[in-house]
């Protein structure tokens, strides 16, 4: 297991909050990754380009960090069938509720939005229950 590193967690979090604030100040847009990703397919005109560039930034960032000596660890992934089902559910769920951990969890809470507060509470609680069932059997 990877050791808990509070300084990196807070610093990384500050960068995420700064990135969301920057996108709002510069572009006037919300840094919700599920919406940016989902709308990059069908949004036309000026609303597609910036979304694609934001996503490019997300993917390029690990390469820039690696050049400074901070290499992103490879993620541990479950069986491919679980990956496929999980991905589908994340896609459908974030589209239906209009946001994910960034859109609802960070930008929504930063706006003090009641919708985002409810969504964040519900997806956190649900995920806790799912992990309890998967790792410890039904009933925790």
């Amino acid at each position: 297991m990877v050791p808990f590193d509070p300084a990196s967690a807070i610093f990384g979090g500050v960068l995420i909050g700064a990135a969301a604030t920057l996108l709002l100040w510069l572009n006037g847009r919300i840094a919700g990754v599920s919406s940016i990703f989902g709308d990059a397919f069908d949004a036309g005109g000026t609303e597609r380009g910036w979304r694609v560039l934001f996503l490019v930034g997300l993917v390029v960032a690990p390469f820039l960090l690696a050049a400074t000596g901070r290499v992103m660890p490879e993620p541990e992934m479950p069986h491919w069938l679980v990956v496929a089902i999980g991905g589908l559910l994340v896609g459908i769920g974030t589209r239906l509720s209009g946001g994910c951990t960034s859109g609802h969890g960070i930008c929504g809470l930063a706006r003090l939005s009641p919708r985002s507060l409810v969504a964040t509470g519900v997806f956190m609680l649900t995920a806790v229950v799912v992990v309890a069932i998967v790792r410890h059997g039904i009933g925790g």
Partner: protein
Amino acid sequence: MKMLLGALLSGLIFGAGLVISGMTQPAKVLGFLDIFGVWDPTLAFVMGGALAVALPGFWLARGRERPLLAKQFRWPTRKDIDAPLVVGAVLFGIGWGLVGLCPGPAITNLATFMPQIFLFVVAMAVGMVALDAWQGGRQRR
């Protein structure tokens, strides 16, 4: 044109934050969600750090007429708590709890070129497109 630069800069900083905070690692996310196991508080510190900046940052933006590089702010306007919000959050929570990846870290992890990451991102896109198609079909009826 200028919006492209703003978005690229924001995406780069966002991605760097995800990597440095450890949130691109499903093990750390699942460790936070596993409150009955050896609990990993990382995600709470990440959220805390992010909100410490975004809360005042968003509040300051409220008072401005327009953003620096675009014509206008696009603030979300909905305030109602409806069934799709809750059902969607439940479905997202199940997927997040099964894999430990949400959309941001999944996309940043594309940099690893791992087939499982591509599978997850493609499945996510399929889910979104399928829901759009289903909802579009329902609206037409």
